[in-house]
């Protein structure tokens, strides 16, 4: 029930804030912060409860809903979903903190914001595929409005592109879900029942797995369907970029792991090499494009694509270490991606009013606090030891090494991807902060970070470091949740 | 019988086509009347004398005359002779419908066993039976037809009184 509270709080917050007159910005943002904190608290409670009793699924609520199509209202959490609930809570809070100054149509902003968050929570909670899909689609429309109203640049184009990609992805996934319903012979959408009793023939798995995987992976930014991500991230307002990069892309990865791999292990084994290739293309391509971008936000956008490649690569390994790495990377990139977008999109932009790297000069001298925050985030994103990125990427690489189906080139390219990540991160940090300009010799300081910004940065950095130093915080809850998937994979591998 | 049927049918089709194709409205009305009379002939062939008589009385008699009157009372009697009534696509339309007819309808109809319907042989379309059928089992439908006429009347009132101005 506590887990379900996250969804209830989000949707209630959306509807209540939506009806407060837009002028009361103070009331609105306090309420928003309160709601975000409440969801975070609820997810933390779930976390500790799960630690206390490590069973398969907890807090399962199972209500009859639409028997005509074998759908029920069934929610519950395991370690995997709890890690993502916590992530969503963190990003939701920091999103509110980094939109603290937002005044234009604040009530509508937070209405859409929490509708989106509620949908995301719902996906992570659902144990029924129909319910999962409903929440998955609920999350689509608010994204459009957030980007189209509060975004910048080619915002309507980017918003429409994002929505159409998401919708097409979900439509493809829907197709797969209906096939699952009939293919299982069970005529149910119950995820647990399908996992335990669904008997999917091998040909069925071979045919349906790519449909489901691609359908979900479109939202995870899989190459060549990633193009919505950079444009969407760049055009979105900061809080939305944070949510998109931090959480929404994880929806897709979560669907891939829980539904596609979890239910169709044989298909997963068959297609793993292909996914592996696509994943390294994601990594390398994203990193290389990030290297040549001039717009700071595009850099971060493509780095997101690159990092999601690690998630996909981890998924494709199909072994314990790799899947663990993928799950950790989801969390890690959620935190770090959000932090990078927050600093670039809000902290730097509100002071310099530009995102073009060549227009930024002497920032190190003019806003040292911000620079250090970004450098920490950048190092975390590079995967420096001590940060969560290191743990997760290491896991993924070890998993890749252990995956026998992969060609040696996948490992080499993944290593190259890490090098490329190092390169673009360092190059861009240099371009943004340390480049002195001859013509602009001004050293006038920018305003220091506001309290809200400091709090947001601190929160995100805290979690990035905490997971980096003590990964057991997450691995201990992820291990039991990945076990059944690995078991199914072992059975399918015969 | 069969020969008479085909002659009647040919006249009916001819009348209908001419009604559409003719430029002069009065001529068009007369070809509609031709169509109606052929139809009446067909009814006689079907042993439905009463309906044939009704066809003559109502359609050829009143409806036809009504149409002629309507045309006489409106200003433009003949229509615009410069405009071609047949649009350029008529040949294509004719071709397609002809093809459909040949490819779809004719084979289906000729293939199927067309044994005579046993129940139809004791069918007696007398006036009395017709009246009884209408007023007894089909009273509900006749009621709806009454509503249909009301709707037509109301629509006509609106159209007519607005056309005549305030």
């Amino acid at each position, binding site marked *: 029930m506590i887990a379900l509270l996250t969804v209830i709080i989000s949707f209630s917050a959306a509807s209540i804030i939506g009806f407060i007159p837009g002028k009361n910005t103070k009331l609105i943002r306090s309420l928003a912060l309160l709601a975000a904190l409440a969801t975070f608290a609820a997810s933390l409670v779930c976390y500790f409860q799960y630690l206390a009793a490590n069973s398969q699924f907890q807090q399962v609520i199972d209500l009859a809903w639409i028997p005509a199509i074998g759908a029920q209202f069934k929610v519950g959490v395991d370690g995997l979903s709890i890690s993502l609930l916590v992530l969503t809570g963190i990003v939701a809070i920091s999103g509110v903190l980094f939109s603290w100054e937002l005044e234009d149509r604040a009530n509508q902003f937070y209405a859409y914001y929490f509708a989106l968050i509620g949908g995301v929570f719902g996906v992570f909670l659902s144990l029924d595929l129909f319910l999962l899909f409903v929440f998955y689609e609920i999350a689509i429309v608010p994204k459009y409005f957030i980007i189209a*109203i509060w975004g910048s640049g080619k915002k309507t184009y980017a918003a429409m592109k994002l929505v159409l990609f998401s919708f097409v992805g979900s439509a493809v996934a829907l197709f797969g879900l209906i096939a699952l319903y009939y293919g299982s012979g069970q005529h149910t959408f119950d995820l647990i029942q399908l996992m335990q009793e669904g008997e999917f023939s091998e040909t069925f798995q071979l045919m349906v797995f790519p449909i489901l995987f691609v359908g979900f992976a479109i939202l995870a930014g899989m190459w060549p369907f990633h193009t919505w991500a950079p444009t969407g991230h760049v055009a979105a307002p900061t809080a939305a970029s944070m949510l998109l990069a931090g959480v929404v892309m994880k929806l897709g990865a979560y669907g891939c792991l829980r539904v596609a791999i979890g239910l169709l292990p044989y298909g997963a084994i068959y297609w793993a090499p292909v996914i592996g290739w696509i994943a390294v293309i994601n990594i390398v391509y994203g990193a290389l494009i990030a290297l040549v971008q001039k717009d700071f936000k595009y850099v971060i956008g493509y780095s997101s694509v690159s990092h999601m490649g690690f998630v996909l690569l981890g998924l494709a390994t199909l072994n314990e270490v790799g899947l663990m790495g993928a799950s950790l990377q989801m969390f890690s990139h959620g935190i770090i991606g959000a932090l990078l977008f927050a600093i670039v999109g809000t902290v730097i932009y509100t002071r310099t009013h530009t995102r073009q790297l060549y227009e930024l000069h002497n920032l190190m001298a003019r806003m040292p606090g911000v620079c250090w925050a970004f450098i920490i985030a950048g190092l975390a994103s590079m995967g420096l030891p001590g940060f969560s990125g290191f743990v997760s990427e290491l896991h993924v690489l070890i998993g890749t090494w252990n995956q026998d189906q992969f060609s040696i080139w996948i490992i080499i390219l993944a290593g190259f991807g890490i090098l490329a990540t190092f390169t673009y991160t360092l190059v861009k940090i240099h371009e943004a902060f340390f480049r002195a300009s001859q013509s602009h010799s001004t050293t006038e300081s920018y305003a220091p970070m506001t309290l809200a910004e400091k709090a947001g940065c601190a929160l995100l950095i805290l979690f990035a470091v905490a997971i980096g130093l003590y990964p057991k915080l997450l691995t201990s809850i992820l291990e039991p949740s990945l076990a059944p998937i690995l078991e199914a994979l072992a059975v399918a591998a015969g | 019988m069969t020969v008479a049927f085909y002659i009647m049918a040919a006249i009916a089709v001819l009348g209908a086509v001419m009604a559409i194709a003719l430029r002069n409205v009065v001529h068009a009305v007369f070809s509609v009347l031709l169509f109606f009379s052929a139809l009446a002939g067909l009814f006689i062939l079907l042993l439905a004398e009463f309906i044939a008589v009704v066809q003559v009385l109502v359609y050829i008699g009143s409806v036809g005359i009504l149409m002629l009157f309507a045309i006489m009372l409106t200003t433009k009697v003949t229509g615009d002779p410069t405009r071609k009534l047949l649009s350029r696509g008529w040949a294509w339309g004719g071709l397609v419908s002809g093809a459909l007819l040949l490819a779809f309808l004719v084979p289906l109809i000729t293939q199927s066993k067309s044994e005579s319907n046993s129940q*139809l042989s004791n069918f007696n379309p007398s006036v009395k039976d017709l009246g009884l059928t209408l007023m007894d089992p089909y009273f509900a439908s006749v009621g709806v037809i009454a509503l249909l006429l009301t709707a037509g009347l109301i629509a006509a009132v609106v159209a007519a009184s607005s056309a005549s101005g305030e």
Partner: protein
Amino acid sequence: MNYPQLFLTTLPELIVVLGMFVALGFDYTKYKELDPQTRSNKVAALSTIALMLGLAGVVWQFLQVTDGSKTFSNSFNGQVVLTPLTLWFKGLIFVLALFVVQFAKTDVPNKHVSEYFGLILLSTLGMGFLITAQNLIMLFVSIELISLSLYGLTAFQTDKKFSVEAGIKYFTIGGVSSAFLLFGLSYLFGATNELSFEGITAAITSGAAPQNYVLIASAFLVVGLGFKIAAAPFHLWAPDTYQCGPVPVAAWVASGSKIASFFLLVQLFGPVLETSEQKETLIAGIVLVSVLSMVLGNIGALRQSCVKRLLAYSSIAHAGYILIGLVAANEDGSISVLFYAVIYSLATLGAFATIGIIDSRLGREAQIDDFNGTWKQNPGLSILFMIFILSLAGIPPLSGFFGKFYLFMAAIGSQPEIASWSEGFYWLVAVALLMSAVSLFYYVKVLKAFLVSADTPKLPSIQITKAEGAGLLLLAVLVVYLGIYPTGLVEFIAASLG
């Protein structure tokens, strides 16, 4: 004939007819000197009362029928069949008509106030009769009643050239479609020698009817009814009719007449598609119509700037979606068709009503650009409109989503195991999903104008009447409720179909 029985059976209709004549009579005598708006309010009030009393009659009949008492055992050879299902749908039609009357009363096109409402009431009765008809004669007569009333309503603005043009277009094409329908019906009668659906079904199932004739009849019926539901390629009348007729009439054409037509399609084709030897051919034909409707409707809607026209194309596309449930040719298919017809009508009625309200206040036909910034002055209206449009787009948790999902489930469920892509209906569902994505583009485009644009609104703050507001709100609540909890309605339809 049992006349007292007939009286009880048609009691709701008799009440409404009586109400209509009372309204006409008052309008011609007592209200003659009043200004049009007052007359409109009074006549609308009378029509509302008539419809409510009629609805009460329907509810009474419904209770009697579900009670199991034999009050309405006589169906008059299938002319008026009262079952829980038919009565529920007839009640729905009356309810929708109540909405339409509320939306219509603020903007009567000209001085013929009572005629306007009279025709609305008559078309309502036609739809009710069509739903309860299981007899070919009654079927045709009630379709004609609907059509004739709607022709008249479409051309009602006789001083406006486009309204008359739309009316004539609708009339001509509708007349042709009626001819097709009649031809098909006559063949059906010839093949089965039966007028009641029951007898026809029995004749087809037992194989007594020559299959070729049944096929010809069905083909012509598909064409004839395809016109009525505005499915491509028989859709050409729809855009003009929706755009140029009075808006409440367009709403009525898109909602009430759609429900009635789809109900008929299910009743008439359900058994034929399940049992006929020729069902492969027939299904192939309907699939073709369905695909054409989805493609032409959605592609056509993409480039519309007039919202009413856009909704017209979207209604063509929706006819395509609904036909997917019909070709499933199983019980789920029939249920999903009826369910979708209901929720589609609710959403589209709401959308048209909103446009109608805006059009009438704007004094002209609203283009998409005219809605820029509507959220500033009319936030409530914008939210309601968003609900209707998102339901049409099939976004959860609104009912359009579940409706579509159920249609797709039914279609795939008719043959879930396939050996190649062309078997079963996976490919058809794939087309439908793709077209849904296309449709999202134009639906979002409309919503963008309403909710995104920061331009100064062209619309002033709109005062909507209480009746309009209540109507819109109720429709929105229904759209949301049936999306979140569709089980009640689905199970009711399932139980009463079987």
